[in-house]
């Protein structure tokens, strides 16, 4: 009798303890305004619905691939859900570090009843990738540094036009996007860019074009760099993520203009690390289903100017949470902004990244 009681009490305790630990989710994201938008749009409502749960953030998305590899090697994966860009998701999926999932089972249907698979459409670029937002890399320029008698730039090739628009530019310290812009402005037709870039001559052509502005380029590596350089007046124009520029222009009220021409679309979303315990997995799945539903993704757009990855969320995008301005015109996907765009070519860069990276770095060091 006594033994049974002890056993019962023991297992009850174990259950309580198990439940208590399982309720804590470790989410990995990017920090800054983006993480705040996730916190407000879906983590806070989720915690309200699940009073026992808690969420710990780890701002390690920038090193997600390396860290997940190390965790896997050490046999100690401490992350539950990781926010990564699509290209990293593809790599993690190929290496077996991310879990493959079935969209129909894991993700909620759209508000309008479309199946999850159709609602996200092509944006599910990998079997492991759960899309959240569409963002773009594009240019901002100092409106007060446009030379007198010249119109503000509306064409991405202004970046390469030092005569009309003198001044420093800030570009990301990697070949992706820069090579495409260089070829486009060197007269290569948009739909031939990747064919040209696949050849060594094409790569040299792109680098030669970049060479014409090399002396006037400040290279950035963190998303916060270009906004800082623009606010300082250190550079006349610079590339960065459109949400950062939105923050500089609208929230910080700096004299900066947006150049949407030839913006490069990219995707950001969740991956579930492979090898979670069943209990943990059930909880993560519950969170993901909630966090990627139509309303939550639309809500996120009230905090940051990134487009929701679901088609059904687009009509629900409303106003900025604090400023009360309409967010739709600030979305990269707004028809007015998306007249001339490029989509990050995941396949091309998966195949050519190492080669072109080496070439680019060698060129940088010259």
């Amino acid at each position, binding site marked *: 009798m006594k033994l049974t009681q002890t056993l019962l009490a023991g297992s009850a305790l174990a259950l309580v303890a198990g439940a208590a630990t399982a309720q804590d989710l*470790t989410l990995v994201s*990017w*920090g*800054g*305004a983006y993480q705040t938008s996730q916190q407000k749009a879906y983590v806070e409502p989720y915690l309200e619905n699940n009073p026992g749960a808690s969420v*710990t*953030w*780890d*701002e390690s998305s*920038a090193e997600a691939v390396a860290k997940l590899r*190390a*965790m896997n*090697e*050490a*046999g*100690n994966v*401490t992350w539950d859900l990781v926010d990564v860009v699509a290209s990293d998701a593809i790599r993690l999926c190929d290496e077996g570090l991310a879990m493959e999932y079935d969209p129909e089972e894991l993700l909620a249907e759209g508000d309008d009843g479309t199946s999850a698979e159709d609602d996200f459409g092509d944006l599910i670029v990998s079997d492991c990738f759960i899309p959240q937002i569409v963002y773009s890399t594009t240019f901002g320029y100092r409106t007060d540094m446009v030379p007198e008698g010249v119109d503000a730039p509306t064409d991405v090739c202004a970046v390469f036009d030092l005569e009309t628009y003198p001044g420093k530019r800030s570009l990301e310290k990697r070949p992706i996007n820069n090579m495409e812009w260089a070829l486009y402005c060197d007269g290569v037709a948009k739909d031939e860019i990747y064919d040209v870039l696949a050849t060594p001559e094409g790569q040299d052509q792109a680098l030669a074009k970049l060479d014409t502005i090399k002396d006037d380029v400040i290279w950035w590596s*963190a*998303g*916060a*760099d270009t*906004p*800082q350089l623009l*606010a*300082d007046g250190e550079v006349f124009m610079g590339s960065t993520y459109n949400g950062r520029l939105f923050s500089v222009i609208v929230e*910080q009220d700096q004299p900066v203009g947006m150049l949407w021409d030839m913006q490069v679309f990219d995707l950001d979303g969740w991956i579930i690390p492979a090898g979670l315990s069943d209990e943990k997995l059930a909880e993560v799945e519950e969170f993901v289903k909630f966090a990627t539903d139509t309303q939550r993704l639309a809500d996120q757009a009230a905090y940051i100017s990134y487009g929701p990855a679901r088609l059904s969320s687009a009509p629900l995008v409303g106003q900025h949470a604090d400023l009360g301005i309409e967010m739709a015109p600030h979305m990269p996907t707004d028809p007015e902004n998306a007249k001339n765009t490029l989509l990050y070519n995941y396949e091309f860069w998966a195949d050519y990244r190492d080669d072109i990276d080496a070439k680019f770095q060698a060129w940088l060091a010259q």
Partner: protein
Amino acid sequence: MALTIAKPTSAVFAAGVAALFGAFFGIFVGTASGSTLLGLVGGAVVIFALSWAAATFLREQEKPARWGFVVLFVAGGFLFSGVPGLVLGLIFGTFFGWLTFYVASGRYRTGLPPYSTPRQVLWHFAFRTIAGMILVFLITPILVVMPLSFNAEDFFTFTPEMLSFDPAGYSLKHYRDFFTSSDWQGALWNSVRIAPVATILAVGFGTLAAIGLSQPHVPFRQAIMAILISPMIVPLIISAAGMYFFYSRIGLQGTYLGVVLAHAALGIPFVIITVTATLVGFDRSLTRAAANMGADPITTFFRVQMPLILPGVISGGLFAFITSFDEVVVVLFVGSAGQKTLPWQMFIGLREQISPTILAVATILVIISIALLTTVELLRRRSERLRGMSPS
């Protein structure tokens, strides 16, 4: 000391010396406004002309001439770039007025022996100038951060409002952000929870190790010492990666205890080094005398040895504390998101969001560090005083 009589020097010499400094500061003014070379040449020429005129025509009217310098520079600075120029002009005017007459009157030689050769005089002042410049070089980056932390904008930028000393350009919002944001407060709390415990462990183990290693009969003393201070020598990233895999296997990775132990390991070498250094001056006959009077080793340690080596223990402990409090590499590996410390949070903040909140935190940390170092210095002085009073 005033054995040397001040002998007035030629106006050209005084103006030449002033022009050297003029050229040097001209570089900065010139670079800031677009042309380094122009600044260098312009600074030299303008200062030479002014100093020469002052030393030639106003040699006897030193006071009014120096005021003239100040007024001229302030007015020039104000015309050139408004209020910030005015402040700079005040500094430069005072400096160059003083310099011109310091050299022209020959007063600069009064501090030196009368037989010094010109070369010795030159070296005397060059040495001081170089030392001063090194000090400026070391301290400027820290000082620049402080006014920026009161920036009213969310960037690392001296806004025009700040430069013209407009109160609207300043704000305490980054300090408010630090004290109200749960991220920063959580990080501060973690640091406060980790650093003292790591310090106590480091001080305990480090002191014991130092005392043990100072006994002449311990075998392999050098080798053991080398191993114990290796965390200080091995690149941090190597220790961190090693700890990561080791701690993962034994279940310490991502735990509070793991971070505390890792930081203690980093702090131990500092304690060993400082305690060993104080033990060198420790008179062993004191412990024998204590034993002779019937004290057991523990009593001897706490009543005789510990009070004498306390300054070494405390300064070692402070270094261990600052190491843990400032450390970012190891905690990134060994800790998990639940152990986010202040430096970790600053690292994230710097990479993802260049926000002046980091500068506010940096300012607070600088003040804490100054307070800690002042404590060490006061303790050291106290112990020196006590030693001076002791009969040995």
